[in-house]
């Protein structure tokens, strides 16, 4: 059994929450007491039948306003897979929440209301999916019941979306007609959609191949913590604790530590207290080196024959996430995995309209939810990969030096 993380995106009322409720309900992940609470609330709101959407709207403000504000994480499993759903709100003022949910997703379900087809929000969600490099996309054409389960309606939407996918270079796109409210094509294939030949949504989620999304070629090991017991028996023990974010490490590998550039060889690898010959992403391990060199948190151990880039100047797409606008020249901490360095946003090249992909030049600041192309200068060199080539070592956050809040997400180009 493996693990798939996905995000759902759609405009308000496209049926996101209903779809998630349906997946949980039909996979028997909702318990009786939770249903009872739902029934009670649904009655409170005079909706008549139970409102599956209430399952995901966890905060009082959300229930009161009937909308999803923050990312909610939901879980269900089938005998094949465990699923983690990030349910993110769709409105433009919550772009940052979608970016957050998208950052760890293996797959995005983009919901389209069959009656409305591809709309501005669809483009925006697709652009974010592409910016965040979510490997797989499912276009779920919902509310098919309201268009008489029409194949023509579905086909036209597929044609329209294919154009969006092409312009954004989305690699793996699958189209599924559904009705979340009625459960058509969610778990079982629906006879009302007999013309559709593909799998049901759940079947697809269970079977989509995700193992190959893990990069086993470019080995990267950010050091989180140095273990030095300094007891009489373990006097010389010095282990570097961290998670292999990509690639494979073996005993005897010749490695380089960045940014220092010092070289050594792997003496031993420990996994869960046992020595192993090799370890791979995403395992958390302890690595020992032959030489006593200076390594601390924030350093990255890589193989000498496959190194990340090293620079003090980063070209990024930056999604701004703070109410306070970004002012070029302001200083921020930049955190990339375990490395934290001081940085300054030097120059905004352009602002990207996330609805249309149009570039607006000459902007001097960025506000909440803006996506900009910018140059960031760092106080010391940062070992990185481009976000496109290695998501695990190409995404960094910006932290405000005074408020300590996470204010930006950088995709390094």
């Amino acid at each position, binding site marked *: 059994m493996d693990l798939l993380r996905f995000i759902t995106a759609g405009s308000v009322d496209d049926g996101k929450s209903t779809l998630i409720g349906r997946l949980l309900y039909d996979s028997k992940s909702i318990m009786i007491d939770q249903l009872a609470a739902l029934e009670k609330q649904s009655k409170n709101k005079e909706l008549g039948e139970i409102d599956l959407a209430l399952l995901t*709207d966890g905060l009082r403000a959300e229930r009161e306003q009937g909308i999803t504000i923050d990312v909610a*994480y939901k*879980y269900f499993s089938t005998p094949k897979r465990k699923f983690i759903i990030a349910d993110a709100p769709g409105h433009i003022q919550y772009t940052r929440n979608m970016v957050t949910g998208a*950052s*760890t997703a293996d797959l995005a379900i983009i919901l389209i209301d069959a009656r409305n087809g591809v709309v501005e929000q669809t483009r925006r969600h697709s652009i974010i999916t592409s910016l965040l490099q979510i490997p797989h996309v499912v276009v779920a054409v919902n509310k098919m019941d309201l268009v008489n389960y029409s194949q023509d309606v579905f086909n036209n939407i597929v044609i329209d979306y294919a154009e969006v996918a092409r312009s954004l270079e989305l690699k793996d796109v699958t189209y599924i007609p559904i009705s979340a409210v009625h459960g058509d094509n969610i778990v079982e294939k629906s006879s009302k959609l007999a013309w559709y030949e593909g799998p049901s949504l759940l079947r697809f989620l269970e079977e989509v191949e995700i193992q190959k999304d893990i990069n086993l070629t470019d080995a990267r090991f950010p050091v989180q913590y140095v273990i030095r017991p300094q007891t009489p028996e373990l006097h010389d*023990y010095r282990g570097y604790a*961290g998670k292999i974010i990509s690639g494979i490490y073996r005993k005897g590998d010749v490695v380089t530590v960045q940014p220092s550039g010092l070289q050594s060889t792997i003496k031993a690898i420990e996994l869960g*207290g046992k020595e192993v010959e090799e370890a791979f992403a*995403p395992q958390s391990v302890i690595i020992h080196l032959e030489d006593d060199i200076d390594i601390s948190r924030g350093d990255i151990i890589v193989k000498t024959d496959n190194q990340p880039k090293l620079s003090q100047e980063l070209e990024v797409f930056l999604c701004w996430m703070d109410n306070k606008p970004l002012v070029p020249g302001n200083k921020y901490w930049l955190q990339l995995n375990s490395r934290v360095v001081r940085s300054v946003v030097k120059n905004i090249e352009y602002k990207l309209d996330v609805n249309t992909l149009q570039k607006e030049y000459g902007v001097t600041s960025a506000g909440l939810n803006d996506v900009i192309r910018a140059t960031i200068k760092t106080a010391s060199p940062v070992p990185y990969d481009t976000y496109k080539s290695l998501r695990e070592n190409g995404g960094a956050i910006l932290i405000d030096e005074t408020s300590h809040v996470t204010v930006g997400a950088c995709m390094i180009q």
Partner: protein
Amino acid sequence: MSKYRLDYLDHLESEAIHIMREVAGQFERPALLFSGGKDSITLVHLALKAFRPGKFPFPLVHIDTGHNFPEALEFRDRLVEKIGERLIVRKVEDTIKAKQLTEPKGKFASRNALQTYTLLDTIEEFKFDACIGGARRDEEKARAKERIFSVRDEFGQWDPKLQRPELWNTYNGKIHKGENVRAFPISNWTELDVWNYIRREKIELPSIYFAHEREVIEHEGQLVAVSEFIRLDDTDRVVVKKVRYRTVGDMTCTAAVESSATTIDDIINEITATKTSERGETRIDDKVSEAAMEDRKKNGYF
């Protein structure tokens, strides 16, 4: 390439270890909040994997309500002795005395809410800047929205509207003096995941998780253990039933379930077949209001 494929439990384990090491790497004075239940026992197991052969970079902290199951306390002490780590116990009883707090009254007078005072005092006493906890997002709807690194202000309060975005596997632990972070390494685990992990890793648990005979009363469909901490009324009928606990909290606010499960396999079978959530079935304190947990968290609860 199937050689390099990991089981979902390995993914969850590695994520949890990574989070614990981030706490160790980013904070000066972290602590691990240890309740004696299966989730915190799992955290200890994960900490062993994260830091051995070194010592834990944090003490275990138990906020003791005085209403614990004796089996859970014995287990706690044995575990601490076995792993040779430091345990700090702070008692709600003492906070009640020192601060002249009012003990809740009633049939199942629970000190659950008073725990928050002791917790905040303990954080203050030891100047903890991060507290690792065993909360899971599947437990409850407000938890489903909480970050893995959750910043609390000086009053321990959680503000759901001011949560920091949390991207990739990057955790922002920067805080101001007086603030602290609650870190939840098993956020993404479900109850069943925890049990499956306990089975796989052969983690030892207190005996009350397994079926045993116990004197209970039936109250609004829930089985509550007879103890000195609850008030028996004339209408209560004390019966002996074969029960086990799905969660281990206070004797006053944790209900037992009828069960004949004597092994982890039995328990997993029962949980897979059950139709009621862990909190719904066993927490006597969560039914009060739809937003009970959200409110408690805003006030500094775990």
